[in-house]
């Protein structure tokens, strides 16, 4: 306990706190720019971090990590092009809000929700540190496969009226996810005899293509000429935002829970958390359980708050197993693990015992980074909203270049740009023909989770399918899937019957 307090004291020292703040600001900027991502930024910072004391280095790294989660919302709301994959869901309602002149409010909600999601999940995780890691590793391959399938069910909600088309899009995403060397058998699949695809479809480049490039293509086809943006109601008050967030507390809670749980699940992470939370909000609006007269797509504030809370809530679940067991939860924490090794440290079960100051320092920084991000972000709102005054065509053009060069930087290969362009064009046509891009993205993300784990589960039991019914998590997932399926059938039947009654 005294280590915890002493580390807390260290963090609040001016130097460390300033570094954390600087990291958060940097993370925000990285998050804003489509094409730059958290793992990329962290990898670039390692040489710099190397020259510092470990604790100071990690102030910056953790600050950047948490900052990017919020930064993505800025470009999602202002330009409908999410700066990070995790913020893609925020754009769905955030951008319409900006179009109604509520950009400042949307940003404030996003920032506030991010803070709440991140801090709450951190506070809840703190007393459970010892247990979280142990729990995380007990999730078996069978469990993971079922969790993935369950997450895929969110596609149904995201497709709206066009369930069939949504399923097609998700299936296409699943097909794309199988490209590359098959993890379970070592043979290359669907690689078109090109070595470029041996590692699979470059994920970040594909997301940049689907959400940034496609959005630009769609937007320029609709504008008739270079035009100014809608006037912004720049007067938003912090008190109003706090009040709004309080009104949305249930939705925020759900988002935080979704994010916290998904943070522990390897391979799923913040991208999925955002979409699942959004799917939840969408369903709530359709069921009329959310006050207000706006429909989905018209700027429902909850649609901004929930995904943002969720994608920040992921950070705890991804970082804590790294600290307690040496098992990273996502790409960014994997790089932080590498950084720890560069400092000559051994992350693992003894980390807290052997390097308590650093271990507790990182843990506390994770929580306080939410605060520093909040502060830094609020400073950025005015200048960023001012960006909206720039000629729309120029904004779109700049975003397009950013996206393309960013997709190069994501892997340092020209192939990254090719993928971004290809998926951008695909996304354009999908939008034109009414196929859900988020559904494709979910398929792309969840495909490996579902397939690898399903096959691995069967490999371990040598073909015994009972494994899917023997673990509590698996059983719960199956029950939920069955329940959702039954409810869906029931709803459809009842809707059909109502229609018939009305026609009769």
């Amino acid at each position: 306990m005294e280590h915890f307090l002493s580390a807390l004291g260290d963090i609040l020292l001016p130097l460390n706190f300033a570094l954390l703040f600087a990291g958060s600001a940097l993370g925000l900027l990285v998050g804003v720019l489509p094409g730059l991502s958290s793992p990329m930024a962290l990898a670039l910072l390692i040489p710099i971090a190397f020259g510092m004391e470990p604790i100071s280095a990690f102030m910056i790294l953790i600050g950047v990590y948490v900052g990017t989660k919020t930064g993505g919302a800025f470009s999602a709301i202002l330009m409908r092009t999410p700066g990070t994959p995790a913020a893609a869901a925020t754009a769905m309602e955030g951008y319409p809000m900006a179009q109604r002149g509520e950009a400042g409010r949307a940003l404030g909600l996003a920032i506030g929700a991010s803070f709440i999601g991140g801090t709450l999940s951190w506070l809840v995780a703190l007393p459970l540190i010892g247990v979280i890691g142990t729990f995380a590793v007990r999730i078996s391959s069978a469990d993971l496969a079922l969790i993935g399938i369950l997450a895929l069910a969110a596609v149904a909600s995201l497709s709206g009226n066009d369930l069939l088309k949504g399923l097609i899009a998700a299936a296409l995403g699943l097909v794309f996810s199988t490209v590359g060397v098959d993890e379970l058998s070592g043979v290359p699949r669907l690689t078109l005899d090109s070595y470029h695809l041996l590692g699979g479809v470059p994920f970040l480049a594909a997301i940049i293509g689907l959400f940034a490039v496609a959005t630009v293509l769609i937007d320029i086809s609709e504008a008739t000429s270079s035009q100014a943006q809608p006037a912004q109601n720049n007067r938003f008050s912090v008190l109003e935002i706090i009040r709004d967030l309080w009104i949305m507390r249930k939705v925020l809670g759900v988002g935080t829970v979704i994010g916290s749980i998904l943070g522990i699940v390897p391979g799923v992470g913040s991208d999925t958390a955002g979409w699942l939370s959004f799917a939840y909000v969408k369903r709530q609006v359709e069921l009329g359980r959310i006050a207000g007269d706006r429909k989905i797509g018209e700027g429902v504030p909850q649609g901004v708050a929930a995904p943002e809370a969720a994608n920040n809530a992921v950070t705890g679940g991804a970082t804590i197993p790294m600290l307690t067991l040496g098992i990273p939860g996502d790409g960014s924490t994997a790089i932080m693990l590498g950084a720890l090794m560069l400092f000559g440290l051994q992350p693992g079960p003894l980390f807290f015992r052997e390097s308590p100051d650093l271990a507790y320092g990182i843990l506390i920084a994770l929580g306080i980074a939410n605060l520093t991000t909040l502060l830094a972000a609020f400073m950025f709102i005015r200048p960023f909203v001012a960006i909206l005054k720039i000629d729309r065509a120029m904004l779109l053009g700049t975003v397009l270049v950013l996206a393309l060069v960013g997709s190069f930087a994501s892997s340092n290969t020209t192939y990254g740009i090719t993928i971004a362009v290809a998926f951008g064009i695909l996304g354009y046509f999908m939008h034109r023909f009414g196929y859900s891009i988020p559904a494709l993205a979910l398929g792309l993300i969840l495909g490996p989770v579902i397939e690898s784990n399903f096959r691995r589960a069967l490999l371990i039991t040598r073909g015994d399918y009972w494994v899917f019914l023997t673990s509590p998590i698996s059983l719960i997932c199956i029950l939920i899937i069955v329940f959702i399926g039954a409810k869906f059938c029931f709803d459809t039947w009842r809707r059909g019957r109502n229609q018939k009654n009305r026609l009769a």
Partner: protein
Amino acid sequence: MAYFIRTLVTGAVFSALAAATAPVMAQEFPTKSIRIVNAFAPGGATDTAIRGLTQNSDQVIDQPIVIESVTGGAGVTGILKVARSDPDGYTLLVADTVMVTLPLFQDSLPFSIADFKAVGVFNLRGAWLLSRPSKGWTSLADFVEAAKAEPGALTVGVPSLSSPQHLAVIAVEDAFDIDVNIVPYGGGAPTMAALLGDQIDAAMPGAPAGLDSVNAGEAVFLVASTEIELDKYDGEIISFMDAGINHDLGIWTAIWAPKDTPDDVMERLSDIFGTMAQSNEWTTFARGYGVTPIWKPLDEASAYIKASSESLSDLAKLVE
């Protein structure tokens, strides 16, 4: 006459100068920053190794050494990039044994090891077999006994299928004529996670992954694929050779240059990296996180890599 003498003297002076600067010019390499391409995941073992090696490069040369991460194509993209770059010694590749095992499992790769010349091999680690205390195995013999009792039932996790770690498991199977269920995961971390979560009976990650868990008593060491030196491990290291397995399987990390790089540049590179590889900073750092610092330059490196490649190739043939 004066003009003639002046020309003669000028010519002589210039020739002398040229002669004097020629060796200096060769000595001046590098004149710009050297780029080392890492074709594999940032933050991984190769990344840590090369960053650790080059962290004090300013003590050896004036120009900076930049580590460039070029991912994609399961590593092929980065490897090809170096293979196709100018052979002037400014673009190098760092890679570990995967350079050799990848072609064993994938046909028609657009590169081969013949496209490169080794500058030097600078560290060595091994694969090590770990299990859980709850299994009650304290040595490889216990493991083998359990495997014989239930053929095909014991699950052993490996980081990936075309890796030296996978081949290490094959070596164990071959030596004792046992059959285990090899389960691939997507990397060392998920493999350790699966072991710690008791989802598999044993795991063969690349040392020192899992070292902390072993020291904490969460994992038990059974055997290592080569003579590794782990300062931070309290127990005794038993290698394949000690345990009666006739395969010495080391996971080495090396630096390569494109094959047409001139010999004098290769010599110079070998000097530069040799100095770093034998420096106190690197050796202390390497031992600190659990790898064995070694240095085998140029021809010695090529021979070493070739021997390793042949031994791994023999094992690869045993994979169905």
